[in-house]
């Protein structure tokens, strides 16, 4: 339930009490944030009203066998049929009294992190590829870009936590089923490897730098794609129903923004026009962004009614802006010769900004979609109807 940004009375009182005590919020028993250490006065004693097997619940039960409340021994099929009839009908009832589900509470830090993580992934790929073709100077620049993009990622994610001081709890367990857990681990490994690679570069240890760069790119395959999995693995209709499209879309954005950033970084550090790596990066960013545009358009068409959340409101505007940014970039690419290298720089910049807009649009669309009770209910119905539909 929303508070309209105002603290409820209880919270105001709680804060007043807290301030009055001048910050002494020590709990009566134990240490804050840890389980209290206390013992029962009498060992193994029961509390008042406690009974074995929760006999107090039986005691408070008002429907006995003689009340006609329930009729034991009814037919199982009757219940199965009743459930199918009410839950498996093809149509969503006219009135839906939501909210059916809660939208994600993530704020701007998360899409911004997706963007940074994507750039880091893309440039890690470029670094590894440059090393393989023997262009170690470009690889060095790409490794720097990867580290520079990876560095703000963790602080952004920590800032988004409700309890930032507990950020290390993310590495408390290793949980393959949770993309958030795997992502936290992957980001740690990626950042460490990226840092090691740049450190090795600075120390002049080329072989170690290349090895660390390869490790970074290896973790990049997950870092660049898991963000899409993270969104798909929720109950939010527009995210979940794009599960096979969202991770590839995010990979495309990652590679394009990474290649574009590295390309600009190479240009800034004096790599000349016509340098094969610089030329290749132009091709990579353009191909990746074009693929991204195609995948997004196909996905939006495929989603149908659910795709509305990608068209309306602020996410819709961002999505449109992003698409036009990509189209302009593509046009600038093909209108080369005339404007000289600057047209390509503008194209790279447009790809990078479009990537940012795409990330914000996708996260925002999830919020709209989850708040759209009809979309949530309809998505559920389309799943339940074929399952529980009686063919007879």
């Amino acid at each position, binding site marked *: 339930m929303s508070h309209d940004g105002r603290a409820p009375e209880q919270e105001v009182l709680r804060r007043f009490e807290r301030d009055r005590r001048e910050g002494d919020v020590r709990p009566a028993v134990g240490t804050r944030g840890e389980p209290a250490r206390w013992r029962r006065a009498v060992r193994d004693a029961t509390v008042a009203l406690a009974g074995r097997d929760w006999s107090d619940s039986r005691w408070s039960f008002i429907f006995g066998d003689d009340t006609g409340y*329930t009729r034991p021994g009814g037919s199982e099929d009757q219940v199965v049929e*009743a459930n199918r009839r009410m839950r498996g009908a093809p149509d969503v009832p006219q009135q*839906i*009294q939501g*909210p*059916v589900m*809660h939208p994600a509470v993530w704020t701007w830090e998360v899409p911004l992190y997706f963007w940074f993580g994507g750039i880091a992934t893309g440039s890690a*790929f470029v670094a590894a590829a440059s090393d393989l073709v023997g262009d170690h100077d470009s690889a060095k620049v790409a490794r720097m870009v990867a580290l520079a993009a990876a560095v703000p990622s963790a602080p952004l994610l920590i800032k988004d936590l409700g309890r930032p001081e507990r950020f290390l709890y993310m590495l408390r367990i290793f949980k393959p089923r949770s993309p958030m857990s795997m992502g936290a681990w992957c980001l740690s490994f990626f950042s460490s490897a990226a840092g090691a690679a740049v450190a090795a570069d600075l120390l002049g240890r080329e072989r170690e730098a290349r090895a660390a760069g390869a490790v970074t790119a290896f973790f990049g395959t997950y870092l660049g794609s898991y963000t899409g999995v993270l969104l798909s693995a*929720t109950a939010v209709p527009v995210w*979940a129903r794009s599960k096979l499209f969202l991770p590839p879309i995010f990979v495309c954005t990652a590679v394009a923004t990474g290649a574009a950033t590295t390309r600009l970084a190479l240009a800034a550090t004096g790599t000349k026009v016509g340098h094969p790596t610089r030329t290749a990066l132009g091709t990579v960013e353009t191909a990746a962004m074009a693929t991204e545009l195609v995948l997004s358009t196909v996905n939006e068409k495929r989603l149908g009614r659910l795709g509305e959340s990608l068209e309306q409101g602020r996410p819709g505007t961002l999505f449109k802006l992003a698409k036009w940014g990509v189209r302009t970039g593509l046009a600038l690419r093909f209108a080369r010769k005339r404007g000289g290298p600057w047209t390509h720089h503008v194209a790279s910049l447009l790809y990078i900004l479009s990537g940012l807009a795409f990330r914000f649009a996708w996260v925002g669309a999830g919020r709209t979609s989850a708040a759209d009770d009809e979309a949530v209910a309809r998505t559920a119905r389309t799943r339940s109807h074929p399952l529980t539909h009686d063919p007879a």
Partner: protein
Amino acid sequence: MSELAITRPGAERMGFFTDTTTCIGCKACEVACKQWNDLPADGSAFRKGGSYDNTGALGAATWRHVRFVENTQPSEAARADARARLAEGGGGHVPSIPAVSELEGAGSGATAEDLPDLVQWAEDNGTEEVDVAGAVADMERWVFMSDVCKHCTNAGCLDACPTGALIRTEFETVVLQADVCNGCGYCIPSCPFGVVNRDQFDGRAAKCTLCYDRLEDGLEPACAKSCPTDSIQFGPYDELVETAKGRVTALHERGVTDAYLYGAGDADGEQLAGGLGAFFLLTQPPERFGLPAWAESPAQENVPGATLAGLTAAAVAGVLTMASLMASHRRHRTRPRWKRSV
């Protein structure tokens, strides 16, 4: 077992059976829950869209929520019937609905249009002589449902939690350990039922624990204890399911043929999230209560496919990047020296 779980020999699955046909909407369960778990009030805003329900939804500080399901639109049949009765000269006087002025005065943002359109209905018919009791009766029944965390067999929140704050207890319920949660918020969109939420003042997520602390001490959960009509029943899961199935049979025999179970008694492959530890007896389609007609742990459903798609795409992108660089360098090497611009 990929779940973090507490096991104890002899412990069995415990659950809730909430029977909406006996709920009177007293909200005693909500109050008992808040008292026992020391939860603050959410403030008193009426639910958007016109409802006397002033809690709104489940959330970080509301672990039991009595949902009021009001049919705000009289059906076509009800309208026709009322028109006929008006034509016959029957009917009474429309009293002003006190809530309208109260709501407007309280600044809740609710207007007359948001409320059951009895007034509108009278105006449409151009008279104040309307049989209110009849009109209200003709509107579909006002039903209540005490909503709670479903303690799913395949729990989305539990699968999503990266810190291990959410665990499965020995009673096969799903409990959020407040001392572990770091407020990442991933459980929130992972719950298909909109149960768990993050407390914006506390920073951590919170939800029903099925009174884990009371269960450990042999007491039934606070809401079930306080329920005056036994709409909320607590007990061993298997026993509850038996009772519930018998209840459906009994209701069908009495002519309530719309009665069905939400979350239990389904055929294999049709269960909601593998079967709900807290299930419900409803008499209207689930959407009327804000419940999805189908649910599954989103992580279990989507993670393998999405991860495979993502990793494949990333591998392809990596290989293509490499191929592009190799091709560019080869072209560069084979190009005549005078054409090279570097």
